[in-house]
């Protein structure tokens, strides 16, 4: 593989540096590096970040290939600047055996746009009653380290306790979708003023907060670590902050859409805004931003949830929950966190690369941009402004809430172990 010189980029938004890639590795980082024998990418004014890592992606394969496949999902990930994604287990069949997680893992390897690390289900069939073969999934070729019933909550306290205890044997982590099921029966949006006006079933904040409170206490009790998926309320932030202050080993994520959108958007009854957990209030959004800034929330995770057009082009109650997010995540974070002064680009690198790789134990990802490290890199034109056009998405699905909305920033290049997966904003 030939050498590549990325010339004049602002590394992590800071110093202007050249970065020389040789094969799969970063050979050198510094000013005025020689371009001899290298293909040169002029990156003046652009931001260079470590390749992004998404701890929460739905790739839908196997079973719902009409929504997304490992190929289309990883192409979308590369387009968004990601070099590794963790694929959620709620596929058909459910990823609750070594066979299914190996299938997903190998598909990722074959396609080569992005490393795919499967997440294993905590319980058989996501049914919440019987532990899946967590050890077998860990020992498989996929080497599963993260377990989650995402889409459903592990609501039985005993099962959750056992899962937390069991994964300690191999350093795994349970990622909880915090949703008390009885409190959210029939829920279709955030419970509050808007849901009452619209006559839509309410998803109360306490249904998320009560599970998080329980799980951090369980994690403390058994001495394990727990990861909380997609925090959406100010109350959840307070509980995680309290748990961390108490020394409990908890990490948490927030989605880009929960950093930007509120339940006021649901007034249109447009199902592009239907998502689980639901869009909350302005107060919640501000609390989530602040918590991401101060480190209470560790990472940004997309919860990329592709659905075919017909599953969203219908009445609200009939529509599927979820929105795609891989290709817009960095732009939303730029708008909500960087341009508001809440995060530096170096901190973005932490929340979107270092920390998710650390939580998920993604080998070779989330590494510093320095010599000797794997060349997993993302180059961003942060000065770009443009309206989101889903027609240009690499994802098989188009269910984005941002269609027609102006968002800043565009990923111009992505490198996966030195190989460009995106060049000048287009898939290589």
């Amino acid at each position: 593989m030939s050498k590549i010189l990325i010339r004049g980029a602002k590394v992590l938004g800071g110093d202007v540096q050249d970065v020389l890639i040789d094969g799969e590795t970063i050979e050198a980082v510094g000013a005025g590096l020689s371009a001899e024998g290298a293909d040169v990418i002029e990156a003046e004014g652009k931001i260079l970040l470590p390749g992004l890592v998404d701890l929460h992606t739905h790739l839908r394969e196997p079973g719902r290939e009409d929504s997304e496949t490992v190929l289309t999902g990883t192409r979308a990930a590369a387009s968004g600047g990601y070099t590794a994604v963790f694929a959620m287990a709620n596929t058909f069949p459910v990823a609750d055996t070594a066979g299914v997680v190996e299938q997903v893992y190998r598909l990722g390897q074959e396609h080569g746009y992005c490393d795919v690390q499967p997440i294993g289900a905590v319980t058989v069939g996501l049914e919440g009653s019987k532990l899946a073969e967590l050890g077998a999934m860990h020992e498989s070729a996929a080497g599963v380290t993260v377990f989650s019933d995402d889409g459903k909550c592990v609501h039985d306290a005993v099962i959750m306790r056992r899962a937390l205890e069991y994964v300690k044997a191999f350093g795994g982590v349970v990622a909880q979708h915090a949703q008390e099921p009885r409190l959210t029966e029939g829920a279709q949006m955030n419970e509050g003023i808007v849901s009452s006006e619209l006559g839509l079933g309410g998803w109360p904040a306490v249904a998320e907060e009560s599970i998080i409170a329980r799980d951090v206490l369980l994690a403390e009790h058994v001495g394990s670590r727990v990861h909380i998926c997609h925090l959406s309320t100010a109350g959840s932030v307070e509980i995680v902050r309290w748990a961390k202050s108490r020394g409990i080993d908890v990490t948490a994520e927030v989605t880009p859409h929960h950093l930007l959108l509120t339940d006021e958007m649901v007034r249109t009854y447009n199902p592009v805004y239907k998502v689980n957990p639901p869009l909350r209030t302005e107060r919640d959004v501000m609390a989530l931003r602040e918590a991401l800034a101060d480190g209470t929330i560790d990472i940004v995770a997309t919860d990329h949830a592709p659905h075919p057009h017909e599953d969203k082009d219908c009445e609200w109650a009939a529509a599927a929950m979820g929105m795609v997010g891989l290709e817009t995540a960095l732009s939303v974070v730029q708008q909500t966190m960087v341009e508001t002064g809440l995060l530096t680009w170096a901190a973005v690198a932490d929340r979107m690369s270092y920390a998710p790789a650390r939580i998920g134990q993604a080998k070779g990802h989330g590494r510093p941009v320095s010599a000797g490290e794997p060349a997993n890199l993302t180059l961003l034109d942060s000065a770009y402004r443009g309206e989101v056009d889903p027609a240009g998405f690499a994802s098989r699905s188009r269910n984005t809430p941002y269609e027609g909305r102006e968002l800043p920033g565009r990923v111009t290049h992505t490198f996966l172990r030195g190989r460009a997966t995106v060049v000048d904003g287009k898939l290589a």
Partner: protein
Amino acid sequence: MKRHLISAADLTRDDAVLILDTAEEMARVADRPIKKLPTLRGRTVCNLFFEDSTRTRISFEAAEKRLSADVINFAAKGSSVSKGESLKDTAQTLEAMGVDAVVIRHGASGAPYRLATSGWIDAPVINAGDGTHQHPTQALLDAFTMRRRLIGPDAGLGQDLSGRRITLVGDVLHSRVARSNVDLLHTLGAEVTLVAPPTLVPVGVETWPCEVSYDLDRVLPKTDAVMMLRVQRERMNAAFFPTEREYSRRYGLDGERMARMPEHALVMHPGPMVRGMEITAEVADSDRCTVVEQVANGVSVRMAVLYLLLGGNEPAVTHTRTEEK
């Protein structure tokens, strides 16, 4: 007026009064030997009912036929989802058939709004009840009934309900009738009080233009009309209240409670009534109870809405009245 009638909140005070005044004109048609106007001759209206409803569907059908519209009744048992067909496909079928208006009843809140705003169909959409969201023609017929009884059919023309005190009692949380009535009655200047157990009061109700009380007995003496809301029996299994008997004791309307109301005050109910639980037979059958009138008024109000959305700008039946003279 807007092109569609999706929510009572969409109506201005002038819109609402115009509908009520027009409904008075329409009501006179019911007194004639031949209860028919040629207003919508040649226009096709589809009653698209995804949810069971006998009285609302018949009321709309009667209104449409009295205006000489061609009527298509489409009853989709169960939801569009359970049938495997989408609302969009149904709408586009109707569009292809050239319907001029769609009256839709749907179990999903927001379905009429989606139908009206998604570009699936061009025709005006009239919401005949969607989930727990809105039922605007019910609110209009309730307001029409109140105005007739409290002010009078002729004296009420051009009038709103300023200063009238209306109480809604029961399952506000799941009631599209309550939402619609709060919106419309507020627009018409009435003072609205909701009475319900706290479990059946919606979150965020403090932002609604009304008062909330848990004590029916305290509110009744200051009420010009009390509207009892239907309580679905399945709610009892969801722990919204302990027993039917306790609900009835605290929030049911019996003769003793009715006696605490001012003499002129009305008892209303959107129907169907659960006698013995939310209302006793004594009250339901009393002269104060307007349930039968509400049904009759529903046809007049729906004629007015259809006329105003689909008809011309001329007064609905002025020329007919002239002929009568």
